[in-house]
Protein backbone atom coordinates (compact mmCIF):
# COMPACT_ATOMS: atom_id res chain seq x y z
CA UNK A 1 0.00 0.00 0.00
CA UNK A 2 1.30 3.45 -0.81
CA UNK A 3 2.21 5.72 2.03
CA UNK A 4 -0.57 8.19 1.48
CA UNK A 5 -3.30 5.58 1.34
CA UNK A 6 -1.81 3.87 4.34
CA UNK A 7 -1.97 7.09 6.35
CA UNK A 8 -5.55 7.62 5.29
CA UNK A 9 -6.41 4.17 6.53
CA UNK A 10 -4.68 4.90 9.84
CA UNK A 11 -6.62 8.14 10.17
CA UNK A 12 -9.86 6.29 9.49
CA UNK A 13 -9.14 3.71 12.16
CA UNK A 14 -8.07 6.40 14.63
CA UNK A 15 -11.30 8.30 14.10
CA UNK A 16 -13.23 5.09 14.68
CA UNK A 17 -11.20 4.52 17.84
CA UNK A 18 -11.94 8.05 19.03
CA UNK A 19 -15.62 7.28 18.55
CA UNK A 20 -15.20 4.35 20.92
CA UNK A 21 -14.62 1.48 18.47
CA UNK A 22 -12.07 -0.60 20.36
CA UNK A 23 -11.60 -3.16 17.59
CA UNK A 24 -10.63 -0.57 14.99
CA UNK A 25 -8.34 1.05 17.49
CA UNK A 26 -6.65 -2.23 18.28
CA UNK A 27 -6.23 -2.92 14.58
CA UNK A 28 -4.62 0.48 14.14
CA UNK A 29 -2.09 -0.15 16.90
CA UNK A 30 -1.31 -3.59 15.46
CA UNK A 31 -0.75 -2.01 12.03
CA UNK A 32 1.48 0.72 13.46
CA UNK A 33 3.63 -1.59 15.54
CA UNK A 34 5.78 -3.13 12.74
CA UNK A 35 6.31 0.32 11.25
CA UNK A 36 7.34 1.75 14.61
CA UNK A 37 9.54 -1.28 15.24
CA UNK A 38 11.41 -0.94 11.95
CA UNK A 39 11.81 2.76 12.60
CA UNK A 40 13.07 2.22 16.16
CA UNK A 41 15.60 -0.42 15.11
CA UNK A 42 16.93 1.77 12.36
CA UNK A 43 17.20 4.68 14.74
CA UNK A 44 18.85 2.78 17.56
CA UNK A 45 21.16 0.44 15.65
CA UNK A 46 23.76 3.16 14.89
CA UNK A 47 23.89 3.85 18.63
CA UNK A 48 24.69 0.20 19.17
CA UNK A 49 21.48 -0.57 20.95
CA UNK A 50 19.82 -3.96 20.97
CA UNK A 51 16.45 -4.95 19.56
CA UNK A 52 15.06 -5.21 23.07
CA UNK A 53 15.89 -1.52 23.57
CA UNK A 54 14.05 -0.82 20.33
CA UNK A 55 11.06 -2.75 21.64
CA UNK A 56 11.03 -0.52 24.71
CA UNK A 57 10.88 2.50 22.41
CA UNK A 58 8.05 0.86 20.45
CA UNK A 59 6.05 0.33 23.63
CA UNK A 60 6.77 3.80 24.86
CA UNK A 61 5.66 5.25 21.53
CA UNK A 62 2.45 3.20 21.58
CA UNK A 63 1.73 4.47 25.07
CA UNK A 64 2.32 8.05 23.94
CA UNK A 65 0.10 7.59 20.89
CA UNK A 66 -2.59 6.33 23.20
CA UNK A 67 -2.27 8.81 26.05
CA UNK A 68 -1.81 11.82 23.74
CA UNK A 69 -4.35 10.87 21.10
CA UNK A 70 -6.38 13.99 21.88
CA UNK A 71 -3.49 16.02 20.46
CA UNK A 72 -4.34 14.76 16.97
CA UNK A 73 -6.94 16.86 15.16
CA UNK A 74 -9.33 14.58 13.37
CA UNK A 75 -9.16 16.78 10.27
CA UNK A 76 -5.36 16.91 10.29
CA UNK A 77 -3.20 14.39 8.40
CA UNK A 78 -2.22 11.45 10.58
CA UNK A 79 1.31 10.86 9.27
CA UNK A 80 3.00 14.05 10.53
CA UNK A 81 1.46 13.57 13.96
CA UNK A 82 2.64 9.97 14.18
CA UNK A 83 6.13 10.81 12.95
CA UNK A 84 6.47 13.66 15.42
CA UNK A 85 5.50 11.40 18.33
CA UNK A 86 7.81 8.60 17.20
CA UNK A 87 10.68 11.03 16.74
CA UNK A 88 10.08 12.61 20.13
CA UNK A 89 10.14 9.22 21.87
CA UNK A 90 13.24 8.10 19.98
CA UNK A 91 15.17 11.26 20.82
CA UNK A 92 14.08 10.85 24.43
CA UNK A 93 15.31 7.25 24.52
CA UNK A 94 18.66 8.13 22.98
CA UNK A 95 19.12 11.10 25.25
CA UNK A 96 18.38 9.06 28.35
CA UNK A 97 21.00 6.60 27.31
CA UNK A 98 23.41 9.42 26.60
CA UNK A 99 23.96 8.56 22.97
CA UNK A 100 24.73 10.90 20.18
CA UNK A 101 21.57 11.48 18.21
CA UNK A 102 21.65 10.59 14.56
CA UNK A 103 18.11 10.06 13.44
CA UNK A 104 17.06 8.79 10.08
CA UNK A 105 14.99 11.51 8.46
CA UNK A 106 13.19 9.24 6.01
CA UNK A 107 9.51 9.18 5.58
CA UNK A 108 7.62 6.41 7.30
CA UNK A 109 5.95 5.58 4.02
CA UNK A 110 9.28 4.32 2.74
CA UNK A 111 9.54 1.82 5.52
CA UNK A 112 8.12 -1.52 4.58
CA UNK A 113 5.70 -2.57 7.21
CA UNK A 114 8.00 -5.40 8.08
CA UNK A 115 9.83 -4.59 11.23
CA UNK A 116 10.45 -8.24 11.90
CA UNK A 117 8.99 -10.02 14.84
CA UNK A 118 9.05 -8.89 18.41
CA UNK A 119 12.29 -10.01 20.04
CA UNK A 120 12.04 -12.80 22.54
CA UNK A 121 12.52 -11.43 25.97
CA UNK A 122 13.61 -13.45 28.92
CA UNK A 123 10.71 -14.77 30.92
CA UNK A 124 11.89 -12.71 33.87
CA UNK A 125 11.85 -9.65 31.68
CA UNK A 126 8.19 -9.97 30.88
CA UNK A 127 6.29 -7.90 33.33
CA UNK A 128 9.29 -5.99 34.55
CA UNK A 129 7.45 -2.77 33.86
CA UNK A 130 4.37 -3.94 35.69
CA UNK A 131 6.17 -4.78 38.90
CA UNK A 132 6.36 -1.31 40.27
CA UNK A 133 2.68 -0.47 39.69
CA UNK A 134 0.54 -0.25 42.83
CA UNK A 135 -1.08 -3.68 43.39
CA UNK A 136 -4.58 -2.54 42.45
CA UNK A 137 -3.50 -1.19 39.08
CA UNK A 138 -1.11 -4.05 38.47
CA UNK A 139 -3.71 -6.81 38.83
CA UNK A 140 -6.08 -5.00 36.49
CA UNK A 141 -3.48 -4.25 33.82
CA UNK A 142 -2.16 -7.80 34.10
CA UNK A 143 -5.63 -9.35 33.80
CA UNK A 144 -6.50 -7.31 30.72
CA UNK A 145 -3.13 -7.22 28.99
CA UNK A 146 -1.69 -10.64 29.71
CA UNK A 147 -4.71 -12.82 30.50
CA UNK A 148 -6.78 -11.10 27.82
CA UNK A 149 -9.74 -10.33 30.07
CA UNK A 150 -12.28 -7.74 28.96
CA UNK A 151 -13.24 -4.85 31.21
CA UNK A 152 -16.39 -6.74 32.18
CA UNK A 153 -14.42 -9.97 32.86
CA UNK A 154 -12.01 -8.11 35.10
CA UNK A 155 -14.85 -6.38 36.92
CA UNK A 156 -16.51 -9.73 37.63
CA UNK A 157 -13.28 -11.41 38.64
CA UNK A 158 -12.28 -8.78 41.17
CA UNK A 159 -15.85 -7.83 42.17
CA UNK A 160 -15.38 -4.25 41.08
CA UNK A 161 -17.59 -1.96 39.04
CA UNK A 162 -16.62 -1.60 35.37
CA UNK A 163 -16.05 2.08 36.08
CA UNK A 164 -13.48 1.29 38.78
CA UNK A 165 -11.74 -1.16 36.42
CA UNK A 166 -11.58 1.51 33.71
CA UNK A 167 -10.10 4.02 36.12
CA UNK A 168 -7.50 1.53 37.43
CA UNK A 169 -6.55 0.52 33.88
CA UNK A 170 -6.18 4.11 32.73
CA UNK A 171 -4.14 5.11 35.77
CA UNK A 172 -1.98 2.01 35.38
CA UNK A 173 -1.20 2.87 31.76
CA UNK A 174 -0.40 6.49 32.64
CA UNK A 175 1.91 5.29 35.41
CA UNK A 176 3.56 2.91 32.98
CA UNK A 177 4.28 5.76 30.58
CA UNK A 178 5.73 7.81 33.45
CA UNK A 179 7.87 4.88 34.48
CA UNK A 180 9.31 4.50 30.99
CA UNK A 181 10.08 8.18 30.89
CA UNK A 182 12.00 8.31 34.13
CA UNK A 183 13.65 4.92 33.91
CA UNK A 184 17.41 4.63 33.96
CA UNK A 185 18.66 2.41 31.17
Amino acid sequence: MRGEEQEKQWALLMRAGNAGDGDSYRRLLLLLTPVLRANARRGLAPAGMADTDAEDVVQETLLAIHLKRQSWDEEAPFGPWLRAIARHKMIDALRRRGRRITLPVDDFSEILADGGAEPDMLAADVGRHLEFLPPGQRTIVQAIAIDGASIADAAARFSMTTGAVRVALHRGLSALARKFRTEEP
Partner: protein
Amino acid sequence: MKTDDLIRALAADCATRPTSLRRAFATAMIPGLAIAFGLYLAFLGPRPHLLWLLAEPRFAFKVCLSLLLAALSARLVMRLVKPGAESRRAALLLAIVPALLAAGIAVELLSVPISLWSQKLIGTNALHCLKSIPMLGLAPLAAILFSLRQGAPEHPAIAGAAAGLLAGAIGAALYATHCPDDSPLFVAVWYTLAITFITALGSIAGVRLLRW
Protein backbone atom coordinates in the same frame (compact mmCIF):
# COMPACT_ATOMS: atom_id res chain seq x y z
CA MET B 1 5.19 -7.08 29.00
CA LYS B 2 4.86 -8.11 25.38
CA THR B 3 3.93 -5.45 22.89
CA ASP B 4 0.80 -7.33 21.83
CA ASP B 5 -0.27 -7.48 25.47
CA LEU B 6 0.25 -3.76 25.82
CA ILE B 7 -1.86 -3.16 22.73
CA ARG B 8 -4.66 -5.24 24.22
CA ALA B 9 -4.60 -3.06 27.34
CA LEU B 10 -4.49 0.16 25.29
CA ALA B 11 -7.45 -0.96 23.20
CA ALA B 12 -9.41 -1.78 26.36
CA ASP B 13 -8.68 1.74 27.59
CA CYS B 14 -9.92 3.24 24.30
CA ALA B 15 -13.37 3.97 25.73
CA THR B 16 -11.88 6.28 28.36
CA ARG B 17 -12.00 9.40 26.22
CA PRO B 18 -9.43 12.05 27.06
CA THR B 19 -10.74 15.61 27.23
CA SER B 20 -10.03 17.64 24.13
CA LEU B 21 -7.15 20.09 24.40
CA ARG B 22 -9.36 23.05 23.68
CA ARG B 23 -11.72 22.02 26.44
CA ALA B 24 -8.93 21.39 28.94
CA PHE B 25 -7.51 24.80 28.09
CA ALA B 26 -10.85 26.57 28.47
CA THR B 27 -11.64 24.79 31.73
CA ALA B 28 -8.28 25.65 33.28
CA MET B 29 -8.52 29.27 32.16
CA ILE B 30 -11.68 29.92 34.17
CA PRO B 31 -10.00 29.75 37.62
CA GLY B 32 -6.78 31.22 36.16
CA LEU B 33 -8.55 34.33 34.90
CA ALA B 34 -10.78 34.54 37.97
CA ILE B 35 -7.74 34.66 40.29
CA ALA B 36 -6.01 37.23 38.09
CA PHE B 37 -9.13 39.39 38.06
CA GLY B 38 -9.54 39.02 41.82
CA LEU B 39 -5.97 40.18 42.38
CA TYR B 40 -6.56 43.04 39.98
CA LEU B 41 -9.62 44.21 41.91
CA ALA B 42 -7.93 43.72 45.28
CA PHE B 43 -4.62 45.44 44.54
CA LEU B 44 -5.00 47.59 41.46
CA GLY B 45 -8.52 48.38 40.30
CA PRO B 46 -9.61 50.19 37.17
CA ARG B 47 -8.77 53.78 36.42
CA PRO B 48 -11.60 56.25 36.90
CA HIS B 49 -13.73 56.89 33.79
CA LEU B 50 -12.49 53.70 32.19
CA LEU B 51 -15.08 53.60 29.44
CA TRP B 52 -14.48 57.23 28.50
CA LEU B 53 -10.83 56.47 28.15
CA LEU B 54 -11.47 54.03 25.34
CA ALA B 55 -11.86 57.04 23.08
CA GLU B 56 -8.35 58.12 24.04
CA PRO B 57 -6.11 56.66 21.29
CA ARG B 58 -3.04 55.94 23.44
CA PHE B 59 -5.12 54.11 26.02
CA ALA B 60 -7.07 52.13 23.41
CA PHE B 61 -3.79 51.29 21.66
CA LYS B 62 -2.11 49.71 24.69
CA VAL B 63 -5.20 47.71 25.67
CA CYS B 64 -5.85 46.47 22.13
CA LEU B 65 -2.19 45.62 21.61
CA SER B 66 -2.17 43.48 24.78
CA LEU B 67 -5.35 41.71 23.72
CA LEU B 68 -3.95 41.10 20.25
CA LEU B 69 -0.81 39.60 21.76
CA ALA B 70 -2.96 37.37 23.96
CA ALA B 71 -5.00 36.14 21.00
CA LEU B 72 -1.98 35.47 18.80
CA SER B 73 -0.02 33.69 21.51
CA ALA B 74 -3.07 31.59 22.48
CA ARG B 75 -3.25 30.45 18.86
CA LEU B 76 0.44 29.62 18.89
CA VAL B 77 0.22 27.70 22.16
CA MET B 78 -2.57 25.49 20.86
CA ARG B 79 -0.47 24.58 17.84
CA LEU B 80 2.72 23.94 19.77
CA VAL B 81 1.09 21.19 21.82
CA LYS B 82 -0.04 19.25 18.76
CA PRO B 83 2.75 17.10 17.33
CA GLY B 84 3.32 17.67 13.64
CA ALA B 85 1.07 20.74 13.53
CA GLU B 86 2.23 23.72 11.54
CA SER B 87 3.29 26.34 14.09
CA ARG B 88 5.80 28.47 12.19
CA ARG B 89 3.18 30.70 10.65
CA ALA B 90 1.48 31.25 14.00
CA ALA B 91 4.87 32.19 15.48
CA LEU B 92 5.69 34.59 12.64
CA LEU B 93 2.28 36.22 13.02
CA LEU B 94 3.37 37.35 16.50
CA ALA B 95 5.66 39.86 14.76
CA ILE B 96 2.56 41.97 14.08
CA VAL B 97 2.65 43.07 17.72
CA PRO B 98 6.15 44.63 17.78
CA ALA B 99 5.50 46.05 14.30
CA LEU B 100 2.38 47.83 15.54
CA LEU B 101 4.22 48.95 18.64
CA ALA B 102 7.02 50.40 16.49
CA ALA B 103 4.41 52.28 14.46
CA GLY B 104 2.86 53.56 17.68
CA ILE B 105 6.25 54.75 18.91
CA ALA B 106 6.89 56.54 15.62
CA VAL B 107 3.60 58.40 15.87
CA GLU B 108 4.31 59.25 19.52
CA LEU B 109 7.77 60.61 18.75
CA LEU B 110 6.33 62.77 16.00
CA SER B 111 3.54 64.15 18.13
CA VAL B 112 5.39 64.72 21.42
CA PRO B 113 8.15 67.36 21.76
CA ILE B 114 11.62 65.95 22.34
CA SER B 115 11.80 67.50 25.79
CA LEU B 116 8.96 65.25 26.96
CA TRP B 117 10.26 61.97 25.50
CA SER B 118 12.13 60.77 28.55
CA GLN B 119 9.29 61.78 30.85
CA LYS B 120 6.85 59.73 28.75
CA LEU B 121 9.21 56.80 28.69
CA ILE B 122 9.89 56.68 32.39
CA GLY B 123 6.31 57.48 33.32
CA THR B 124 5.18 57.44 36.91
CA ASN B 125 4.67 53.76 37.49
CA ALA B 126 7.57 51.82 36.00
CA LEU B 127 8.38 49.62 38.98
CA HIS B 128 4.73 49.08 39.71
CA CYS B 129 4.28 47.88 36.14
CA LEU B 130 7.23 45.52 36.38
CA LYS B 131 5.76 43.91 39.48
CA SER B 132 2.08 43.95 38.57
CA ILE B 133 2.11 42.34 35.13
CA PRO B 134 3.89 39.17 36.28
CA MET B 135 1.76 39.13 39.45
CA LEU B 136 -1.42 39.21 37.37
CA GLY B 137 -0.03 36.69 34.88
CA LEU B 138 1.05 34.08 37.40
CA ALA B 139 -2.31 32.34 37.93
CA PRO B 140 -3.10 32.27 34.19
CA LEU B 141 0.39 30.85 33.57
CA ALA B 142 -0.17 28.06 36.07
CA ALA B 143 -3.58 27.34 34.52
CA ILE B 144 -2.22 27.29 30.97
CA LEU B 145 0.70 25.03 31.85
CA PHE B 146 -1.60 22.70 33.76
CA SER B 147 -3.90 22.34 30.77
CA LEU B 148 -0.99 21.92 28.35
CA ARG B 149 0.06 18.79 30.21
CA GLN B 150 -2.78 17.13 28.30
CA GLY B 151 -0.99 18.00 25.08
CA ALA B 152 2.24 16.76 23.58
CA PRO B 153 4.62 19.66 22.88
CA GLU B 154 7.60 18.64 20.76
CA HIS B 155 9.60 21.38 22.44
CA PRO B 156 8.53 21.89 26.07
CA ALA B 157 10.72 24.98 26.52
CA ILE B 158 9.16 26.73 23.53
CA ALA B 159 5.62 25.71 24.45
CA GLY B 160 6.28 26.94 28.00
CA ALA B 161 7.59 30.25 26.67
CA ALA B 162 4.48 30.69 24.51
CA ALA B 163 2.36 29.96 27.58
CA GLY B 164 4.33 32.62 29.47
CA LEU B 165 3.82 35.08 26.64
CA LEU B 166 0.07 34.46 26.75
CA ALA B 167 0.01 34.85 30.54
CA GLY B 168 2.06 38.04 30.26
CA ALA B 169 -0.32 39.43 27.65
CA ILE B 170 -3.29 38.69 29.92
CA GLY B 171 -1.52 40.42 32.81
CA ALA B 172 -0.66 43.36 30.56
CA ALA B 173 -4.23 43.74 29.30
CA LEU B 174 -5.51 43.90 32.88
CA TYR B 175 -2.74 46.17 34.09
CA ALA B 176 -3.26 48.49 31.12
CA THR B 177 -6.72 49.40 32.43
CA HIS B 178 -5.19 50.43 35.75
CA CYS B 179 -2.00 52.26 34.83
CA PRO B 180 -2.15 55.98 33.96
CA ASP B 181 0.96 55.79 31.74
CA ASP B 182 -0.44 55.48 28.25
CA SER B 183 2.50 56.44 26.07
CA PRO B 184 3.67 53.76 23.61
CA LEU B 185 7.18 54.65 24.83
CA PHE B 186 6.27 53.49 28.33
CA VAL B 187 4.57 50.36 26.99
CA ALA B 188 7.52 49.49 24.77
CA VAL B 189 9.99 49.52 27.66
CA TRP B 190 8.19 48.39 30.79
CA TYR B 191 5.46 46.12 29.44
CA THR B 192 8.04 44.40 27.28
CA LEU B 193 10.37 43.84 30.21
CA ALA B 194 7.60 42.49 32.41
CA ILE B 195 6.26 40.17 29.69
CA THR B 196 9.76 38.95 28.89
CA PHE B 197 10.22 38.01 32.51
CA ILE B 198 7.08 35.89 32.67
CA THR B 199 7.86 34.37 29.26
CA ALA B 200 11.21 33.20 30.59
CA LEU B 201 9.49 31.86 33.67
CA GLY B 202 7.05 29.94 31.48
CA SER B 203 9.89 28.47 29.48
CA ILE B 204 11.72 27.25 32.58
CA ALA B 205 8.53 25.79 34.04
CA GLY B 206 7.67 24.25 30.67
CA VAL B 207 10.87 22.24 30.60
CA ARG B 208 9.91 20.65 33.91
CA LEU B 209 6.15 20.37 33.56
CA LEU B 210 5.53 19.69 29.89
CA ARG B 211 7.72 16.64 29.32
CA TRP B 212 5.91 13.58 28.11
